[in-house]
């Protein structure tokens, strides 16, 4: 997120200017500033770090702008005279400006200059330094990020600044953050124990995990501080333990909903129609690639609506995959009804062809499907981090399931589908055009696989192999849940997901997966027709 912070910083530069003037009104003359700026181009990161703190110490108004530029990698040294300048790439040249005076300089060819390297450590330093300078900024975001920066560096020197800021701060949220930062800084300093203990209570009031990070170093300390730290830590840990269980369930549900998405299309083509559809995974893949194409188009034509790309991709994917599905049904599957096994072979062939088709068309390597902003990032729920993409996928999976149920139970098409799949001859004699119903059913299943692809493109890589990664799990879910029963698929997916997540922590990811498979095998022994098998004479037919 550097560049965002940078932009906002650049924009607000002027603002910061006059406020920092008030903060500690002073400017130093060029003669003193120049060498310090030159020092930024040291041979190693340590020199640069030192140069930064020197610059900050001058408290000069131009510093934060300079540092932002440095952080963004806009500072260059010309190879010829080793002079530092602010550069903007333009073709093969850099448009150069003097970092100190801001005067325009002659453009420098790219080969004649090199960038001043910055790495994570420098970025931290810069953030902190700017933080020190922007604690009093009018802009709330500025102040928040400043406080966050200090919370990370825990630099004792910033304590007076913080006191000043906290006094001035109006926004309670930011104020809290600042006092957190202050407490952190205190713990990092050598103030008398009393203050430290106060700080400890202050810290442990905040987010448990961060607090843990601040307190653990003090764990070994003797005297009251150590005790205070230890007790605080133990209380936080016990809290975390509870949250772990919650986390397993939530993550399990999220994994489950991914499985559900992958399997639900199959629950129709395989579960309801009895086609052992090995090309199901490829339908998912096609959906994902549709998303990619849609995003490409949007990027090219209307970048503004990128956030809605998925909403556009959904119907598109449904249509594309569904269309392909209908095509397959009409051209191949329809000759194979009542011979499930042949469908396995044919669809296996189809899946090979589709994979290769995508490969020759889009290339073998991953394509990039972007997350719209509302899908990116995460939020804290108590001590547990939920990512938006996961949350949306849970919601999405469940709604797809609900809609599908409606379609099957309430619509005419659904009625006919069930009629045809249950008794083809009877249905056709009742005047239902079974061929079309077949085609549409298969299309529906494939289409749903397609929209699943849209969702999966958000968390997995989009490559011709995408489908292969899901096909086996999908079959497991459908069979485990009970063929031909959508509820079974739902429950099956969720229970497999949660089981997986509870096994993972102590069995490890690999063993966990194996155990789940073994459980499936054993479970099928108990319920030879899956979780939601129907009893009665019908099954013997």
């Amino acid at each position, binding site marked *: 997120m550097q560049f965002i912070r940078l932009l906002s910083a650049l924009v607000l530069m002027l603002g910061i200017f006059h406020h920092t003037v008030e903060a500690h009104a002073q400017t130093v003359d060029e003669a003193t500033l120049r060498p310090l700026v030159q020092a930024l181009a040291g041979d190693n990161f340590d020199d640069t770090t030192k140069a930064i703190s020197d610059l900050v110490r001058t408290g000069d108004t131009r510093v934060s702008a300079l540092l932002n530029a440095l952080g963004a990698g806009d500072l260059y040294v010309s190879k010829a005279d080793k002079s530092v300048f602010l550069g903007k790439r333009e073709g093969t040249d850099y448009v150069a400006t003097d970092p100190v005076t801001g005067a325009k300089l002659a453009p420098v060819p790219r080969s004649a200059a090199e960038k001043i390297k910055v790495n994570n450590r420098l970025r931290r330093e810069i953030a902190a330094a700017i933080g020190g300078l922007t604690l009093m900024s009018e802009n709330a975001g500025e102040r928040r990020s400043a406080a966050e920066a200090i919370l990370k560096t825990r630099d004792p020197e910033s304590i007076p600044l913080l006191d000043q800021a906290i006094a001035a701060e109006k926004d309670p949220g930011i104020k809290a953050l600042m006092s957190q930062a202050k407490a952190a800084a205190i713990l990092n300093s050598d103030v008398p124990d009393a203050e430290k203990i106060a700080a400890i209570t202050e810290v442990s009031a905040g987010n448990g995990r961060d607090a843990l990070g601040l307190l653990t170093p003090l764990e070994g300390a003797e005297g009251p501080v150590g005790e205070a730290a230890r007790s605080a830590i133990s209380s936080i840990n016990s809290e975390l333990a509870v949250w772990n269980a919650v986390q397993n369930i939530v993550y399990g549900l999220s994994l489950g909903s991914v499985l559900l998405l992958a399997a639900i299309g199959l629950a129709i083509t395989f579960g309801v129609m009895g086609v052992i559809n090995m090309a199901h995974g490829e339908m998912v893949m096609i959906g994902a690639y549709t998303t990619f194409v849609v995003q490409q188009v949007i990027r090219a034509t209307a970048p503004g609506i990128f956030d809605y790309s998925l909403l556009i991709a959904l119907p598109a994917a449904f249509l594309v995959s569904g269309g392909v599905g209908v095509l397959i049904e009409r051209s191949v599957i329809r000759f194979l009804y009542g011979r499930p096994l042949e469908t396995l072979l044919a669809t296996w062939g189809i899946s090979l062809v589709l994979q290769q088709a995508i490969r020759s068309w889009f290339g073998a390597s991953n394509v990039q499907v972007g997350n719209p902003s509302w899908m990116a990032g995460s939020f804290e729920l108590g001590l547990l981090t939920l990512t938006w993409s996961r949350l949306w996928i849970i919601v999405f999976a469940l709604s797809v399931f609900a809609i599908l149920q409606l379609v099957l139970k309430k619509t005419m098409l659904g009625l006919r589908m069930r009629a045809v799949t249950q008794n083809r001859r009877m249905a056709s004699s009742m005047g239902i055009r079974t061929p079309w119903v077949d085609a549409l059913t298969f299309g529906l299943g494939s289409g749903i696989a397609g929209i699943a692809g849209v969702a999966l493109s958000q968390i997995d890589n989009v490559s011709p192999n995408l489908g292969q990664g899901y096909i086996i799990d999908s079959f497991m879910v459908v069979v485990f849940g009970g063929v031909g029963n959508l509820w079974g698929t739902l429950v099956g997916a969720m229970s497999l997901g949660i089981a997986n997540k509870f096994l993972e922590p102590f069995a490890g990811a690999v063993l966990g997966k194996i155990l789940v498979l073994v459980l499936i095998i054993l479970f099928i022994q108990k319920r030879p027709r899956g979780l939601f098998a*129907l*009893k*009665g*004479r019908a099954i*013997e037919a």
Partner: protein
Amino acid sequence: MNAHDTLLYLDGVSVSFDGFRAINNLSLVLQAGEMRAIIGPNGAGKTTMMDIITGKTRPDAGDVYFNGEVDLTKHDEAEIALLGIGRKFQKPTVFESHTVEDNLVLALSGPRSAFSTLFHRQSRDEIDRIHEILYTIRLYDKRVWLAANLSHGQKQWLEIGMLLAQDPKLLLVDEPVAGMTDAETAETAKLLRDIAKTRSVLVVEHDMHFVRELGVKVTCLHEGSVLAEGSLDFVSNDQRVIEVYLGR
């Protein structure tokens, strides 16, 4: 009454699928050597009853005894078959990709263990019995045909032949004359009567003429329990039977 000196003894048997009570407190007794016809409208539970006797379906409640002492609810299909209960299905199920003769070979009573079949060699009298049966069911000249190529009626007969080959004490025959010509029907009735001389038979049939030709005691099932029992005339004059069965 108790299970002793009966061949088949059902008492208070009930079973239900997903709430639907297919058999409801059914009691039925068959003496050794008796032939009994079961009638009743669709869904009366005729076939389910056979499923229970042959161990395909486990009853939720009630006793099922064979030969007075064997509790059939404790055995599976194969064991029950070996106890001497043979079954002919409503829809003729013969092994279509086997020849008529092989169908009988498979049905023929004898060792059933996997290894013994692996090294099995047909003995003289086995062959004789098969030919005998082939004559009885009038399929001798078609013995090398694939069962798949037989007519519907012939399949019914083949299946009866398989029953005979099994040499059971009790035969359960489900709608043996469905889809047969009148001539075939008469033949079948005759055949069953012959069989009944040496064995007990339980026949489920819709075809009243056929039942009449059998001329045996009739039990009428309705909604999973016995509605009436007695001679065909007695039963068919019973008011409730007329209502539910003859559907007025």
